Structure formats: C-alpha cells, structure tokens
C-alpha cells in the first residue's frame, strides 16, 4: 500500500480544484494550496468561499475574492472529461516499507517544510540544504546517507532505511532552528506544533524525535 497524503480527496474534485488553482498560483504552490484545502476545508460543507478568502490572504493574490471564488466554482463544475488528471503528490512513500521512526521523521519534516515554504520558500530550501550538509558530515553508511540527502534535497523519494534516533532528532532540531531564524520563534513554535499534530495523526513515534 502506498502512503499518499491526498488520497482522501475524491480524484475528480481534486483534479478540478487543481485546475482552478493552476490559474491562480505558481505551479510549485499548487500542492500546498491543495493540502490546505484537504486539511482545513474539504471535510466541511460550504467552505469554498472561506477557502478562496484564505487563498487571497495567504498568497497575496491580486484578484479580488469574488473572482477567485468564481474561478474555483467554475472549475469544480467542469465536465470531468475536461479536467486534467491530478499531478502526483510531491512524495509518494511506500509506507509499509519504512521503519517506524523514519516514517515519523518523513511525515514530520514533510509537513514542517510544506508549511515553512508557504511562508518563505527560499529559507525552507536553504534549511533543507543545511540538513543535507549535516547528514553529509555524519558517519552513516553510504546508501543510507545518500538516500536521506537526496530526499532532503528534494531529488529523491523518502528514504527507506533505519536511522539513528539521535541523528533524526538533530535534524528536526536544525529544521526548527531554520524556521526560528527565518520567521522568528513564535511562528517556529506554532509551525512545529502543527507539524507534530499532523504527523501524530498519520503515524506513531513522533515524540521520540523531539
């Protein structure tokens, strides 16, 4: 079974929404906006306008709320045949193959960096790079190390190896420091707390990484 964060969204609605979001946002922000819909709005009826309002605010859209809302509505009611298939989610991890702590780590950091990038994509990228440097300096076996670095650099899938908890904890902490330095301590606390909540919902053992 593959672990897929967007699996709970019906594919047709997913496609239609993505189609609308593509007209509003740069391509790299579409998955994040979709994740926002999934987490905070999709489960409640009648929230499309609130979601549109959130998009206008969070992404500083130049279009007025009315137009954004109308665009999303239009795309949600497109005939299914005209909606392009949803793009693959950023990371598709074969959950059953991941050691529990590695899975918790991947879940936590994916969420943390997704939220971090929403506020400051450059700083998020730099922090991932710093983490990769830290892994490079570690004494891990080559395959373990390369897999983790590739994932951190966003050029490979989530690693499937077991890693020392101490290293994973250090990487989580470095991520926190990165958010602190880029956004400040209060957003960092909030962001990490939200990422912990998300990761704990999907997996176990997250607290061992803190």
């Amino acid at each position, binding site marked *: 079974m593959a672990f897929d964060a967007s699996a709970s969204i019906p594919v047709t609605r997913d496609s239609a929404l993505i189609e609308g979001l593509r007209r509003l946002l740069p391509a790299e922000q579409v998955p994040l906006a979709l994740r926002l819909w999934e987490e905070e709005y999709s489960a409640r009826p009648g929230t499309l306008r609130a979601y549109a309002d959130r998009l206008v605010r969070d992404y500083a859209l130049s279009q007025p709320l009315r137009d954004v809302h109308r665009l999303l509505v239009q795309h949600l009611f497109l005939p299914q045949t005209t909606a392009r298939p949803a793009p693959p989610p950023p990371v598709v991890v074969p959950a059953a193959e991941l050691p529990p702590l590695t899975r918790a780590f991947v879940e936590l950091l994916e969420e943390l960096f997704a939220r971090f990038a929403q506020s400051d994509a450059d700083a998020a990228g730099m922090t991932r790079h710093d983490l990769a440097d830290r892994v490079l300096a570690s004494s891990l076996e080559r395959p373990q190390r390369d897999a983790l670095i590739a994932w951190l650099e966003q050029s490979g899938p989530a690693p499937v190896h077991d890693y020392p908890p101490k290293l994973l*904890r250090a990487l989580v*902490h470095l991520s*926190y*420091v990165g*958010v*602190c*330095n880029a*956004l*400040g*301590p*209060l957003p*960092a*606390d909030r962001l*990490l*707390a939200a990422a*912990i*909540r998300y990761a*704990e919902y999907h997996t176990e053992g997250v*607290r*061992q990484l*803190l």
Partner: protein
Amino acid sequence: MSSRRPPRFVLALLLCGLSPGAFAADPELRAAIDTAWLVLTGALVFFMQAGFALVESGMARTKNAVNVLMKNYTDCCFGALAFWVLGYGLMFGANPSGWIGTDHFLLWGAAHMDYSLLFFQCMFAATAATIVSGAMAERTHYWAYILASTLTTALIYPVFGSWAWGSLYGGSGWLKQLGFTDFAGSTVVHSVGGWCALAGIMVLGPRLGRFGQHGEVRPIPGHNMTSVALGGFILWLGWFGFNGGSTAMADVSVGRIVLNTHFGAAAGAVGVLLTQALLGRPILLSATVNGSLAGLVSITAGCATMEPGHAALTGLVAGTLMLAGEALLLRLRLDDVVGAVSVHGLCGAWGTLAAGLFVAGQDFDLQRVLVQAIGIGAAFLWTFPVAWIMFKAIDTLIGLRAGGIAEQRGLDYSEHYESAYPEFEAEALHEEIR
C-alpha cells in the same frame, strides 16, 4: 490566660494611637513597635517575590513558565542563606575603611533588633537578585542562574550596599560619607540588579530567532497577561513595604513615603500610556505594567525627601525613559525578556538622580546632584564588570546557556521535566512527560 492575650506589638500599636506620650517615653514599647513595623513591611517585600514570579512567568512562553517560577521561588531561598552567611556582614558590618563590612557574618546570638534588620534586608537582597531572572529567561541553565544569583546576593549587592548604606555597627560607607542619598534603593537594589541583568544578557546572547538577519526584531509576546497584571498589582502593593519599611521604624514620615510611592507608580504608567498615544503606538498592558514598575523603581530613592508633585514627575519621566531604554536595547540586539535592564537599571539611575534634584525645600542643589551622579556611576562601574566576569566564568565552567534543543523543547521540560500546562501536551514541542 496568657495565650489569649493579644500580641505585645498589637498592644503597642494601640497604645501608640491612643497615647503618643506613652509611646515616646517607653523605649521597650518603641522597639516593639519598630520591630512590628519591620516585620510587617519585610513580609510585604517578600510578597514582591510573588509579583516578580507572576510578571516574569507571564511574559515568558508557556514552555518556560515552570523554569521562570522555579528561579523566582528558589533564588530567594539560596539568597536568604547566602545573605545571612556573607552578605549582611559585608553590607552592614563594621566598616572602618568605608569600602566593606567586616563583621556580623553568620549572625548568631545577636540582639532582637539585629535579627529584625537581617530579616528585612534579606528581602531586599532577594529583590536585587531576582531582577536578573526575568531578563535572562527562556535560555539560561537553572543551576547556572542559581549560582549567579547566589553570588549576586552574597557579594555583588552587599559590597555596593556597604558603600551607600554601611554601616550599622560602626564606620560609614564612602558614598554615604559623600552625602549620597538612596533612601530605599533605586540604585543600591534596583540598578545593581539591572546592571547584573545587562551583563547577564550580554554574555548569554538573545533567544533563538529573536533578531532576524537584517536586524528585524521578532516579537515574542508573553503567554499570560492576566498573570502579568496581577504580578504588577502585587509588586505595587509590596513596594509600600519596600519603601515604607526603609524607615526601619514606625514613623510619621511613612505617610508621605507611601503616597510618593503610589504617585510614582501611577505616573510611571501614565507616562508610558501618554508616550505610546503620542507616538501612535498600541496601548500595551505589558508596557503599562512595566511603566508603573519603572515609576516605583525611580521613586524608591527619593520617596522620603520629595514632595508628592515631584514624585509624580519622577515617575512620569521614568515611564517614558523605560520605553526609550527598551528601544535602545533592541537596537543593540540585546534580548531582555521582561525589560529588567530598562525598568530597574536605567530607571533606578534616573530615580537616584531625581532624588538629588528634588529635595523638599532644597531643590536643584547641584552639589547634591553631582554626588548622586557619582553614586550612579560607582554602581555601574562596580556591578557591571564584576557581574560580566561572573557570568563569563560560569559560562566557561559549567555553561550558562541552555542548548538550542532546550529552547525548542522549553526549559520546563529540559531543566525540570515538569509542565506548567499539561492539559496542552499536544502543543508541547518535546517528548511526553511521564
């Protein structure tokens, strides 16, 4: 039955009210009343520790609340013992040189009044020490802080105190001989605490992410403004004992002293509010509470010698000065969690100067102002370098700063393994406390 009789000092107070003549004629009665006054006001000063604890913990984040409370609770414990062993003798012992007290260490088998004075002065010493804790909150190792706090109470505070207030047992401090006036300790207690705090935050560095790469200041608001407000009220109340008790005797001058204290605090808060309004800034509760504390600190030196109008003016200026001091510290990238350096250090210095400027019937005596300035400078020149060396030494020997991971998890977890808000465990940035 003797056990049903009212305490002797209550009778004495009643007698005092009914018959001033009897009060003056009986030295034993007089001593009993003075003792009652000292004990009562000393207890009020002790209650200020609760005020500091509430203000400081409220201004910190939830994850550091226990740590701040622990520091406030225990620095007065270690401080009391250290002051008894060493501090009281250094500060009030016979002082033939004018530079340091030489006896009355480990007070034992002394006269009743000596014990009363030791009790009262213990509370003052604890106040000077606890000022530091708020400034250095959220990133200091607990034991390193306790060591620094104990050394402050045992050494840094009493040495300067001996210059300004020594001695009770013969000889006189050199500042006192010059005519330096600091009635209840704007400089002796508060500036000394403030300058120690300044040294502490300089050695410690700012909290993680407090300042951005381009100098931007990231606000880290406190977690409980109710606690800050309650702490402010408690400190205000306790200050009536702090200043009123500094007469060391039940005296008619106390009325003016506590009135000036009250006006100073009120005007300090008003000064902050007016300044913020004039600058078009939000009216913050935390700043308003700090404004009243700035007013209290500043009026402490001259509360016995000023007219109430001047007390209000002193507090008003202190409120504005406090805001300016906080802005200056931020510009220098110094992270003072509660504004202790500005409130206690800077406003203590201002209050001491004001005590020279405004003396009922003898205002603006430049000679007196000069002496006050010497005292202010001496306090800084003694306290800041010695405290800086102390913090540096502690940092080198046992580590002053808690690690980055401790800042992430919060010191409640990393230093005490105890959470102030266990119901919100889901928000915690650390492993579950078992």
